[in-house]
């Protein structure tokens, strides 16, 4: 979505009624983020909106980017926010080989996730409560960190997802699933996340000061 560099647009203040609606939207979409919403968007602080190309709005507090949204699609976290609250977003993990493709803006394909280095939710309903949290026991052999923070619940098509990477601590992309995680496992091929936001893309490099 942000393969090209973006030149900063002007910021505008978000009305307090709209700010409240956005807070609700965020906590509904990302329930695990709810306990921290006052830290992310303090009630007293002014939330700003910046219009960027292709009808995307970026929400920020001061220079700190928080969320972005294409028209009225799902509101997605900026990667810097994912890095601040890594366990609060549903996630999948790609294998090491897929990293450089994702970082060049390629569509994330199923084989990069279904391989040994990749991770998808286990699908175990008993893990429902762990959704989004780190699964300490599941770190594979030869890995020291970057076990990921995927959970048990299968994710549906259209759900926002953070993309972690084998051997890496931080997430490298954010996007919307174009295929449910159950289907990814069954099919093992096809695009999984298209048009996401990734490390080093135009949104990442956008100057927000």
């Amino acid at each position, binding site marked *: 979505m942000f393969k090209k560099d973006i030149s900063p647009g002007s910021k505008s203040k978000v009305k307090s009624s709209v700010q409240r609606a956005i807070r609700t939207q965020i906590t509904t979409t990302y329930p695990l983020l709810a306990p921290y919403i006052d830290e992310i968007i303090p009630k007293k602080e002014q939330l700003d909106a910046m219009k960027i190309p292709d009808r995307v709005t970026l929400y920020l507090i001061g220079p700190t980017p928080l969320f972005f949204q294409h028209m009225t699609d799902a509101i997605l976290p900026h990667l810097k926010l994912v*890095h*601040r609250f890594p366990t609060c977003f549903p996630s999948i993990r790609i294998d090491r080989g897929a990293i450089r493709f994702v970082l060049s803006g390629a569509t994330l394909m199923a084989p990069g996730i279904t391989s040994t280095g990749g991770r998808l939710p286990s699908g175990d309903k008993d893990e429902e409560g762990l959704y989004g949290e780190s699964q300490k026991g599941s770190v594979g052999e030869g890995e020291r960190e970057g076990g990921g923070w995927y959970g048990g619940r299968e994710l549906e098509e259209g759900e926002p997802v953070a993309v972690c990477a084998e051997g890496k*601590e931080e997430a490298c992309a954010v996007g919307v699933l174009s295929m449910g995680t159950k289907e990814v496992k069954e099919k093992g091929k096809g695009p999984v996340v298209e048009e996401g936001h990734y490390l080093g893309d135009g949104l*990442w*490099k956008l100057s927000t000061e």
Partner: protein
Amino acid sequence: MADTAESPAEPQSRHVTYCGVCSLPPEYCEFGGTVKKCQEWLQRNHDDMYERLWSADALAAATSSLSVDARKRAEKDAHKKALKAEAAEAKHAQTISASKVYIKRIERNKRKYVTSVTGLEAFGLENKKVAKEFGKKFATGSSVSKVPSGGEEIVVQGDVSEEIEEFLLEKYDVIPEDNYELVEHKVKKGASAT
């Protein structure tokens, strides 16, 4: 009511270090074109992290999961990226040394001046944003307009050439002082002002 007492008072968010060269988390520097510079920066600024990411052991562990073929392809890719980044940097340096910012004083009517600024975009500045800054700084009209030769100029009301140069020098040090040209533009009587 009880809930509010439980809410965390301390900030709960993690603080992540980003690379001072390529801006990514340092563990991802390897995928950019500036690996060497990134490594130097990390070693200077975050010694411990450097050890963790770039020690021989860490490197061996990181690549062991890839097949020989995939590793070769990744290496080739990294090399290409590095060359590309170098070329881009050289080109950028060249553009900078060759580009000029013109600050023109233009007499519109008798004793009425406007100041025109052109050439900022070559240094990666955005005319619209800078025009706004001028307007704020000098409390005067300041707008971006197209010039007949293509491209844009910022037109500021009043004679503020020197102030503009000073302001830009201070705020945008990507433009070397020698690259400014202050120009006086006098309109002959009868000629249309441009």
